[in-house]
């Protein structure tokens, strides 16, 4: 048991941005709230301020139908200016799937997305190798650890030019890569043709992270695994550590509320 009751620990506050066409907003919201020591709020894409937050989630889905290009229209939503400010001031921003595409289109992360090599939508569990665990999003994993997280996208074929690639590799900005069970980043293990099997990258400052796989979908054994918990645990323990000291934080992140008891069906806005 934690040495401090929950009320004494200030919850880590997540903001989930809802764009028209977002459809993993509720999943992210529910996942985050299943962690002891975390709370979440929705923000509408027309909101212009993001206050009182520790981490912003740009969720998956099809913002603006993914018409034209994935993320191309959403990045002009009024809230994106606030997201950029928030990141510039060191706030944590994580973009999942469509959220990652929005961050790319907005220039907050390097690179761009092509259609999957197979030109089809792919939804399945994949293996990811954690390349860098020294980011606020991955401290909960070991470096080189293989984790199982599902993907669900049609445009997740990551591209960056040669110079850009050299730079992100040198800076340790490649955070997760598609790999096989044993951690080899083979061509067969690459589900969409991404350059260098890249599944997720962060910015130079390490506070903005985008990935195509959906960690929020695997935070509960009952729906297929817990490989994604580490992402949220990392964020929560990092923020809590800064706020209250490392020991409490680790406990706060380690426990999970009874998910069946805490999540309602309604989606507060």
């Amino acid at each position: 048991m934690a040495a401090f009751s929950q009320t004494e620990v200030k919850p880590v506050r997540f903001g989930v941005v809802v764009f028209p066409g977002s459809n993993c907003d509720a999943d992210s919201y529910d996942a985050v709230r299943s962690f002891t020591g975390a709370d979440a709020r929705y923000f509408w894409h027309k909101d212009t301020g993001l206050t009182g937050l520790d981490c912003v989630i740009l969720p998956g889905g099809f913002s603006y139908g993914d018409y034209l290009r994935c993320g191309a229209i959403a990045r002009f939503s009024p809230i994106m200016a606030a997201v950029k400010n928030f990141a510039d001031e060191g706030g944590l921003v994580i973009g999942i799937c469509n959220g990652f595409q929005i961050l790319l289109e907005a220039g907050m992360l390097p690179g761009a997305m092509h259609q999957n090599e197979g030109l089809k939508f792919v939804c399945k569990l994949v293996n990811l190798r954690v390349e860098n665990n020294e980011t606020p999003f991955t401290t909960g994993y070991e470096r080189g650890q293989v984790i199982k997280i599902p993907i669900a996208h049609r445009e997740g074929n990551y591209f960056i030019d040669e110079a850009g690639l050299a730079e992100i590799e040198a800076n340790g900005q490649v955070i997760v890569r598609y790999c096989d069970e044993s951690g080899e980043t083979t061509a067969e293990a690459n589900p969409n043709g991404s350059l260098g099997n890249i599944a997720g990258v962060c910015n130079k400052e390490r506070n903005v992270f985008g990935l195509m796989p959906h960690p929020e979908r695997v935070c509960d054994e009952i729906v297929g695994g817990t490989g994604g918990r580490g992402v949220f645990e990392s964020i929560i323990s990092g923020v809590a550590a800064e706020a209250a000291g490392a020991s409490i934080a680790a406990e706060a992140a380690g426990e999970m509320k009874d998910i069946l008891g805490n999540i309602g069906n309604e989606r507060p806005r």
Partner: protein
Amino acid sequence: MKAKVYITPKAGILDPQGLTIERSLPALGFEGVTNVRVGKYIELDLPDGDAAGEAVDKMCHKLLANPIIEDFEFELVPE
């Protein structure tokens, strides 16, 4: 030679992409833009010859365009 193929949604058919772009433009400071239609532009190289036009036409019908909901035009550019 090179073929340039222009594929557009058939008149009267809903074009959700065009519509969505059109609706988003004013917020970006572009007023008064209407009738946005999104289609495809395809370039390809093919062997020279008299039959080239016919071949491209067939390709469009069979593969490149969906004649049920799309119109197409093409031009041949000798290189």
